């Protein structure tokens, strides 16, 4: 009898550990140096639980990876978990019942109370059910400035957008590029959004992006935005890189004065072992309106008809938002954690600035949440055309207005 019991226990243990050792394929598009370092924190934490993280990194930006991810889910070959930007991108996948409902995990973990700002969880919620785990907050409203470049030009490091524009001629005289800009629509769209917030202000931005107010879009505030964009275009005319991290690299090496890019650029500065405030300066909200949007990355879990995998998916979901993993991941990535209750004192100068702004409630919904990918793509196409050619400010504005008019 005793032997029998022992045997039974042994089999129970074996089968229990076999059940929990699941291999999950996770797709994401975090492939730059800083991003890869951050995602390995997730993988380490997951592997430490006895499961296996099968990394499915897709090179290229979200624009390249998203179609691959979505077509795999639609085509019946889903991965176990995938990164997506939360917001309207996954709406139809949820409606079609292709994504796993995580409401029970969220309730068990008390996500409603810990996720800050709450808008992040709202973006994961459809009809009262929660379908994704937010893992970080990304804000795009940052101007990164190279101390080395300003030293070469003999100018003080600017403290806001106006000073940055004014310092451009001196930088050019010193043979430097004032504004590093990757020639891709989404990067130029970020610059557009940031310049809008700095020049036209938050109210005008909200009226157009959230409420689709045509009159404001065609009005004088936005006219000023497009004029400023022409100025920015001139500042970036000698920047002929494509990828955002190449542009960041121009700032790191002091070939360019600054770059408008999201806070993920920070990961690159970290990999290059630069120190915030000493080697580079960051200006949230371009130093004008200290406000950040709360876009970010979230993980979605496609429905897989296997209870073992489903249990593991839920386990992974809970792990991604757990305090230790959040700290480790966000410190490596340079993004802000999604929960307000953890100790981020190890964060550097720039991240502290961001955390302060969040704590003070300087929060905007991100474009991903208010505009459909269709409209976003149209605006990105317009920006790509605007920045590469010599389109006038008036034409640019007129085209922008017609896109907003058609937006759903």
């Amino acid at each position, binding site marked *: 009898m005793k032997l029998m019991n022992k045997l039974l226990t042994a089999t129970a243990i074996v089968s229990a550990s076999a059940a929990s050792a699941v291999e999950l394929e996770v797709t994401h598009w975090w492939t730059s140096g800083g991003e890869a370092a951050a995602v390995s924190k997730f993988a380490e934490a997951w592997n430490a639980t006895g499961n296996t993280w099968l990394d499915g990194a897709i090179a290229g930006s979200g624009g390249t990876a998203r179609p691959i991810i979505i077509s795999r889910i639609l085509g019946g070959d889903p991965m176990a978990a995938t990164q997506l930007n939360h917001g309207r991108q996954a709406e139809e996948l949820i409606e079609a019942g292709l994504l796993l409902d995580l409401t029970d995990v969220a309730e068990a973990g008390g996500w409603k109370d810990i996720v800050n700002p709450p808008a992040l969880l709202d973006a994961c919620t459809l009809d009262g059910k929660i379908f994704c785990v937010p893992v970080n907050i990304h804000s795009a409203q940052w101007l990164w400035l190279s101390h080395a470049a300003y030293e070469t030009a003999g100018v003080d490091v600017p403290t806001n957008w106006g000073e940055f524009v004014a310092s451009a001629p001196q930088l050019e005289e010193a043979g430097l590029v004032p504004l590093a800009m990757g020639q891709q629509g989404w990067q130029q769209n970020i610059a557009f959004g940031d310049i809008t917030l700095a020049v036209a202000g938050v109210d005008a931005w909200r009226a157009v992006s959230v409420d689709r107010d045509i009159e404001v879009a065609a009005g004088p505030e936005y006219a000023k935005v497009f004029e400023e964009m022409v100025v920015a275009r001139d500042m970036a005319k000698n920047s002929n890189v494509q990828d955002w991290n190449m542009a960041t690299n121009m700032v790191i090496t002091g070939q360019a004065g600054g770059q408008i890019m999201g806070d993920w650029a920070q990961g690159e500065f970290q990999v290059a072992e630069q120190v915030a405030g000493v080697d580079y300066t960051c200006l949230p909200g371009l130093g004008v309106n200290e406000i950040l949007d709360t876009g970010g990355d979230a993980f979605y879990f496609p429905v897989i008809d296997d209870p073992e995998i489903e249990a593991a998916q839920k386990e992974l979901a809970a792990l991604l938002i757990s305090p230790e993993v959040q700290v480790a991941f966000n410190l490596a990535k340079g993004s802000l954690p999604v929960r307000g209750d953890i100790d981020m004192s190890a964060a550097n100068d720039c991240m502290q600035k961001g955390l302060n702004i969040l704590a003070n409630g300087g929060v905007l919904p991100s474009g991903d949440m208010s505009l*459909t990918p269709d409209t976003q793509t149209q605006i990105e196409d317009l920006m790509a*055309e605007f*920045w590469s050619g010599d389109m006038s400010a008036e034409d640019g504005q007129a085209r922008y207005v017609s896109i907003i008019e058609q937006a759903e």
Partner: protein
Amino acid sequence: MTATSEQIGTPIAAKRPSRWLRNPMAKIASIPMILTALVVFVGGTTWTVVYSFTDSKLLPRENFVGFDQYERLWSTARWMVSIKNLALYGVCSLVLTLTIGFILAALLDRKVRFEGAFRTIFLYPFALSFVVTGLAWQWILNPDFGLQNLVREWGWTSFTFDPLNNPDIVMFGLLIAGIWQGSGLIMCIMLAGLRGIDEDIWKAARVDGIGTIKTYVVIIIPMMRPVFITSLVLIASGIIKLYDLVVAQTNGGPGISSEVPAKYVINYMFQAQNLAQGFAASTMMLLSVVIILIPWAYLEFGGRKRG
């Protein structure tokens, strides 16, 4: 296909069997291909065309909106740029690939030494995928590391050759890569065609005192008509589906100056999550192929029967 040649020898039967029942085995064997053609090509095409009249976003849905998607398509600057780029690339690629392919083949056919080595060298690029070709040429044409830098280091410091960053000539940067990749194959096909020309034709031309170049232009090229048509079809199908080269080499940039229709279709179907818009664009691509193909097929096959 072999049906007619076998029938010739047989005596005419009292009552001819129905056309449809002749050679049953050959017909049974071709059923899978017929089904594939019907279901995949015709069925898929019809489905795409039908859904291009809806407002499908990420998933197809049957909410018909008439020609809205087409109206939007033709008022989109990026689509217009894509069409112009494809036309430019198409014409240049067709003419240059055929010319270069033929000239290389004709030169090799002049019984040069090390013909095998040259043939291999010229054909090698074709073994590379468009993605590799695109990346390689992106580096070669990069002003800081590639050709421009090399020539400047040789001492010609004002030399500027930077097509990939210049919206006006970026398509030629793509064209160089496309031709480099594709002309080797055309050369091989042409070479096979040239080898198929009877030696006696050359002798006869020489007896008549016709010069070498004139022989090529006036006698050999007209005789190689089928070879040219094969090449033409190969090049044309490569042009219309031009996508991976652009993605690898420029990704449509700078700005939108090297966008192509196939890329528009993919981007709108998946990145912008607007299926119907992508379908409308792919229907327009199909339509343009049909417009070119039908008159040509009519002339090529319809005309010959009567002539």
